[in-house]
């Protein structure tokens, strides 16, 4: 009984809890936030190095009468039935499939060679890392305009552009995954006397395969979305149709193709992300 009474008595004389002192913001946070604010103001300002962006201007422009927005209610949904638009769409899909597939095949060994576990030797690793960094800074449309200039107008240039773009995306993501693998199986394989390629085959690749497959699908989604642009620089696919109608000012048809594009991307995204959820 007396034991049960004791605790409250012990609590009562305790000092009133004071509020702990607030930690000071780190120098990093202060500098970082200042830079971000200055950068935002500098880029918004209407001067030599700013964009002169103003929301009120955007608003007046949007509410003014213009043919682009006026065409939205009259969107030409018949584009979905038009043979030429459908053909261009199928070309886009085929470019995306082949570009991603080719890129994925090349990207797996490249990704392994850019990591400390998988590289045959250091110079190869550093050289490939540099190539991968440079490739990654190219957006797909730059690849496309380079290939259009060198190889010529048409679907082949678009295909090659998506091929290069996929390599860049998949190599980077896969290499990051390889860096994070469990080293246990690798040590086990080495202890069992596996050579370099056997280690990769039996201990590294099985660990990264699901992630790699999901990166390939992700890259396919990116490629499908990106392929809308390729046609604008002459690399085939639906972008060419888009550019054609845009230059003629036929916005009803442009919006029709946009709706069609929207539907295709949505369906492919749903399938692809369902598969990726299953993988990861």
């Amino acid at each position: 009984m007396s034991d049960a009474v004791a605790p409250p008595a012990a609590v009562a004389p305790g000092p009133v809890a004071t509020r702990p002192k607030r930690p000071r913001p780190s120098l990093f946070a202060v500098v970082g936030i200042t830079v971000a604010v200055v950068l935002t103001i500098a880029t918004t300002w209407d001067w030599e190095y700013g964009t002169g962006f103003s929301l009120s201007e955007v608003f007046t422009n949007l509410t003014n009468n213009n043919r682009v927005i006026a065409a939205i209610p009259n969107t030409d949904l018949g584009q979905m039935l038009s043979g030429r638009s459908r053909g261009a769409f199928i070309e886009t899909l085929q470019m995306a499939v082949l570009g991603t597939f080719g890129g994925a095949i090349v990207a797996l060994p490249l990704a392994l060679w850019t990591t400390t576990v998988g590289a045959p030797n250091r110079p190869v690793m550093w050289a490939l890392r540099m190539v991968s960094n440079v490739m990654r800074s190219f957006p797909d449309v730059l690849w496309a305009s380079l290939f259009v200039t060198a190889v010529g107008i048409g679907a082949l240039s678009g295909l090659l552009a998506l091929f290069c773009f996929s390599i860049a995306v998949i190599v980077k993501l896969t290499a990051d995954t390889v860096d994070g693998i469990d080293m246990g199986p690798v040590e086990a394989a080495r202890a069992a006397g596996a050579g370099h390629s056997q280690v990769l085959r039996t201990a590294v690749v099985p660990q990264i395969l699901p992630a790699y497959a999901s990166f390939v699908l992700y890259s396919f989604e990116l490629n499908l979305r990106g392929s809308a642009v390729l046609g604008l620089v002459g690399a085939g696919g639906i972008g060419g149709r888009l550019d054609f109608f845009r230059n003629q000012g036929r916005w009803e048809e442009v919006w029709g193709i946009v709706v069609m594009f929207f539907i295709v991307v949505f369906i492919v995204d749903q399938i692809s992300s369902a598969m990726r959820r299953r993988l990861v």
Partner: protein
Amino acid sequence: MTATATRVQAAPTPSRPARPRRSLFWTASLVLTAVLVGWAAVGLDAKWERLISAPADMWRLAQLMFGNMTWSDVGRLLDAMWDSIAIAWLGTMLAAAVAVPLAFLAARNLGGTLVSLVIRQFFNMLRALPEVILVIAFIPIFGLSLNAGVLAIAIGSIGTLGKLCAEILEGLDDGPLEAADAAGANRLQRLRWGVLPQALPELMSFVLYRFEINIRVSAVLGAVGAGGIGGTLVNALSFNEFGVAGLALIIVVLGTIAVDMISGWVRRRIIAGPRSERRHGDVAPDALAADALTATL
């Protein structure tokens, strides 16, 4: 003792374990891939004969581009690169200003079930719209100012950024939220003390990551006519000014890599904190980001 010895001798030599059967999912995926690739390869009307000469063609183009560079163009091209960076930064900030608050509503644990469902669908719709299509529509509306690019990037980023941020918020530890509730916090205080301290580093890191992506996007938008370095590069190529194109290419690559490096360093510092050392077996911060991306994008 003798019993154990005989038992060991009697044990069969270990046989190789049977190879696990491939799951139906993998087999089906492989078949589907094969069918798709076959269909595309047969159906695509490309000038395949040019594929063999493509590497040589690219090599010739590289020689033309990097052999004719004149350094007097550097200033003009750097200005164009800065325009691209400014478009990307401002677009990202605008997108964040809209997407982050919406993400709080879209997260199932913070917003209501119905509200979060509606906002999620809104994000999904925006995600399906490529920026290029936006900019094609915006250029005639906004004229040749940089507004079209900024707005296209802003709208194009809201969907992805919002979705990612909502996923981060859903993954939060419930403890601080419960503590805030128990201490009698109202909804705003709950966000301020229960959610923000946990989520802010990751949210900021994803906004920066999006900025890195948007640098590339703004270069793409330039090619369609929205200003910036991409437009300069594509125009130079189509007018056969190979020297200008080569220099622009170098500036794009160096500029993008420089921004990536700075932004990547800041992101690692935000997530991992000061003086953090990577220990053996730790997952690299970038790898974490990659996992998060594939899980959600």
